[in-house]
């Protein structure tokens, strides 16, 4: 059970971090007139096209104690990123970023400008408008971001294997455990993990699509 619990712990933490990061980032991309936003937008979507091993490889290099960033983190802050749970969180946040940011960005871009302006002329700041007017009206987009980021984190393999390795109780996630058991020819255990992952992922997505069948009615 340990790999499954670890997987869901990771997915929860990653989704929470992504929500906090994703909303402001999506807001900035949706409404900023800064020229560089297209660069940021592109970077956010890179994990969609790159093989996970590429991101995993760069993270592994960046956070390796042999190089500057990894060395700095380890010697001054005592944090080891590679082959640790922290590393999995960082890798997963980067890798699932587009799954959180893109739906929220789309929700914000489709939000009627007149409602935002109506809030501004009532003397409300952009922050208050976001919190009290925009976010409550784009709940389907927020839900999509949350579910997709969560589900995608559960399904990760390449990035987490590259940066986290295969340490039981620390970095051995369900997806890695399956690979591990198959390598060891323990097909029964692998099959059990696989079945549980299928069942849980199916349930999450089924509930999500059911809730979103009439996007505006349920809220």
């Amino acid at each position, binding site marked *: 059970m340990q790999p499954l619990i670890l997987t869901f712990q990771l997915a929860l933490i990653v989704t929470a971090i992504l929500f906090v990061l994703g909303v402001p980032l999506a807001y900035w991309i949706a409404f900023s007139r800064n020229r560089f936003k297209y660069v940021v937008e592109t970077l956010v979507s890179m994990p969609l096209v790159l093989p996970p091993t590429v991101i995993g490889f760069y993270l592994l290099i960046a956070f390796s104690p042999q190089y500057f960033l990894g060395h700095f983190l380890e010697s001054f802050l005592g944090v080891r990123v590679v082959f640790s749970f922290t590393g999995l969180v960082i890798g997963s946040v980067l890798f699932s970023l587009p799954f959180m940011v893109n739906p929220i960005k789309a929700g914000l871009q489709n939000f009627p400008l*007149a*409602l935002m*302006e*109506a*809030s*501004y*002329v*009532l*003397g*409300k*700041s952009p922050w208050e408008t976001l919190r*009290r*007017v925009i976010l*409550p*009206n784009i709940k389907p987009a927020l839900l999509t971001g949350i579910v997709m980021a969560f589900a995608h984190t559960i399904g990760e393999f390449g990035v987490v294997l590259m940066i986290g390795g295969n340490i039981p109780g620390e970095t051995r996630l369900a997806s890695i455990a399956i690979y591990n058991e198959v390598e060891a020819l323990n097909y029964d255990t692998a099959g059990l993990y696989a079945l549980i992952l299928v069942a849980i992922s199916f349930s999450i997505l089924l509930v999500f699509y059911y809730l979103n069948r009439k996007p505006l009615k349920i*809220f």
Partner: protein
Amino acid sequence: MIKLRLKKEMHTPIGKEWLDLDLNISKGEFITLYGESGAGKTTFLRILAGLTQPQEGSIEVDGEIWFDSRKKINLSIQQRKTGFVFQENSLFPHMTVRENLEYACGDKKYHSSIEEWMGAMGLKGLEGQKPDKISGGQKQRAALIRALISRPKILLLDEPLSDLDMNARFNLQDEIIKVYQKTKITTIMVSHDLSEVFKLSKKVFVIDRGKITKSGSPQEVFVNNDLSGKFKFTGEIIEIHKDGVINILTLSIGNHVAKVVASDEEIFGLTVGSKVIVAAKAFNPIILKA
């Protein structure tokens, strides 16, 4: 007192135009802006509210400078806090009518006036309804209260009645007059409906392609002065029917439809949809008790 002088480039369907305005509006006046679509009426309101920035000029409201391109002063939309009623429904869909109004209050001290406003505007009993459950007219009433409830310095109405049917429209016109008489708030209303202009305002500015071409009372501006009509109405042509040597015009005047005979010279240049003035000269109507 609003003193305003501004220049703003507009992109219209027929190309670039300059909105070039220089006008003063006294405190407590009810002004209408009349003009074709694309003339710059809405842009003018948006500039006042701070939603759009002019290239140059200055805006002064009651001695306070809201915008000055030379001194680089530009009060934010929030600081100007104008009362703005948009053309389309702009109530927040996730809030009830009451929550919409409370959101607008900001300060709790205005909460007590919500009941009073709802009653005065005929919205009693709808407090708990979401906007999609009430009619277009009710939505715009709620939007009007929302714009007024925290006592803005100016009220800007951007064709708030244009999406309403005739009846709702007339009712809301009466409400706007009532509200204005009660609050005496400086009001600027955009309209391209002549009967509305006549009914609501004492002063009208006609905007054409970004410039003010005429201003004054609706009578002075629209009614041909050498016409000594005892009766004058503005209406819109619904149908032109040629019958032998005469033409029969069907006109919509207020919420009535009337048929009028016209000669070929009279209807020259008129088409269905043209705004016309219908006046009667030298006749005395019969008055009957209704």
